[in-house]
């Protein structure tokens, strides 16, 4: 049987950066979640940190329910930030290479003390306004891409599946409209 080269080309166009860096990164994200779950029984999501951290600064009743978990959520988030830094110091800096890792061409690279850092070209107003909506939406909607998308979907939770389908569909629509309006990057 001969594989159709046109079909192969079409598939390759949909994955210009291959899939290995995405799949390997996803496995690591899952592994981090599993490690925490195995030790503590907690299916950790990233967005509750926003409200739990606000409980240090605000006495609004809504935030008080997170007082018991706010310390470890701070530790979890510090771990995520330093995990990103560890990636920057190794693969992003070219110190470590792997056939699984495909470097990207987006944004701007800059160097500090021998470490290659990266910063986005996406405009600050998009990040800020988008951030506000993400902050409101994830808290009203009970989860984000890690809480619903990883832990919830991993638990085969119907609520999380509906949550993921909702935000994925709306995000695709929004990104298409924003791009069609000529906003870039």
């Amino acid at each position: 049987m001969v594989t159709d080269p046109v079909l192969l080309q079409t598939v390759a166009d949909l994955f210009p950066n291959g899939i290995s860096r995405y799949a390997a990164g996803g496995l690591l994200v899952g592994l981090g979640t599993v490690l925490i779950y195995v030790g503590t029984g907690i299916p950790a999501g990233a967005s509750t940190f926003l409200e739990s951290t606000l409980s240090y600064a605000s006495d609004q009743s809504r935030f008080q329910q997170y007082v018991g978990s706010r310390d470890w959520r701070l530790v979890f988030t510090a771990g995520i930030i330093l995990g990103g830094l560890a990636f920057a110091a190794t693969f992003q800096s070219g110190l470590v290479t792997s056939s699984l890792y495909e470097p990207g061409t987006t944004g701007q690279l800059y160097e500090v003390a021998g470490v290659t850092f990266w910063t986005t070209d996406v405009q600050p107003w998009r990040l800020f306004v988008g951030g506000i909506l993400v902050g409101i939406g994830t808290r009203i909607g009970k989860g984000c891409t890690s809480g619903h998308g990883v832990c919830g979907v991993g638990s085969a939770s119907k609520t999380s599946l509906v949550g993921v389908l909702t935000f994925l569909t709306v995000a695709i629509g929004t990104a298409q409209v924003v791009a069609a309006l000529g906003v870039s990057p």
Partner: protein
Amino acid sequence: MSDDRHPLFEPLIFVGGLIFGFGLGFSHMARPEVVLNFLQFDDLGLPFVMFGAAIVSGIAFALLPRIRDAAPLTGTPYERRLKPFDRNVLVGGTVFGVGWGLSGICPGAAYASLGVGNVTILWALAGMFVGAYAQGYWRSQRRARNTAATGAD
């Protein structure tokens, strides 16, 4: 509560976060451009991150309750992450979706993005705290009003 916690509780959470953040950096999900490229169908690799992670966690969530009753560091029983479904899931998911589609950033990826050197992401983080505070303030006020109204009856 935190006094009788196992001494390895927070170190384990920290290492879990490290691997989690490293994975977000490695997958380039910490780059808003890459997320936007996926949402615009220019590079369909991104779902491999979320579903790859969900498959790994799904295996653990399914197997662990059969192996042990409770987690060693907390004594918390192994349970699935199930949240009740109501209208909020749709409303919140829609608002989150507009924000994600506009900015290409979600909470976990934003923290990791700061780690890879993306200082501009502080705009998104500031926005997230403003948004989380706004909904918390609104819900606190609403709860206070509801309690007051019931109390008066």
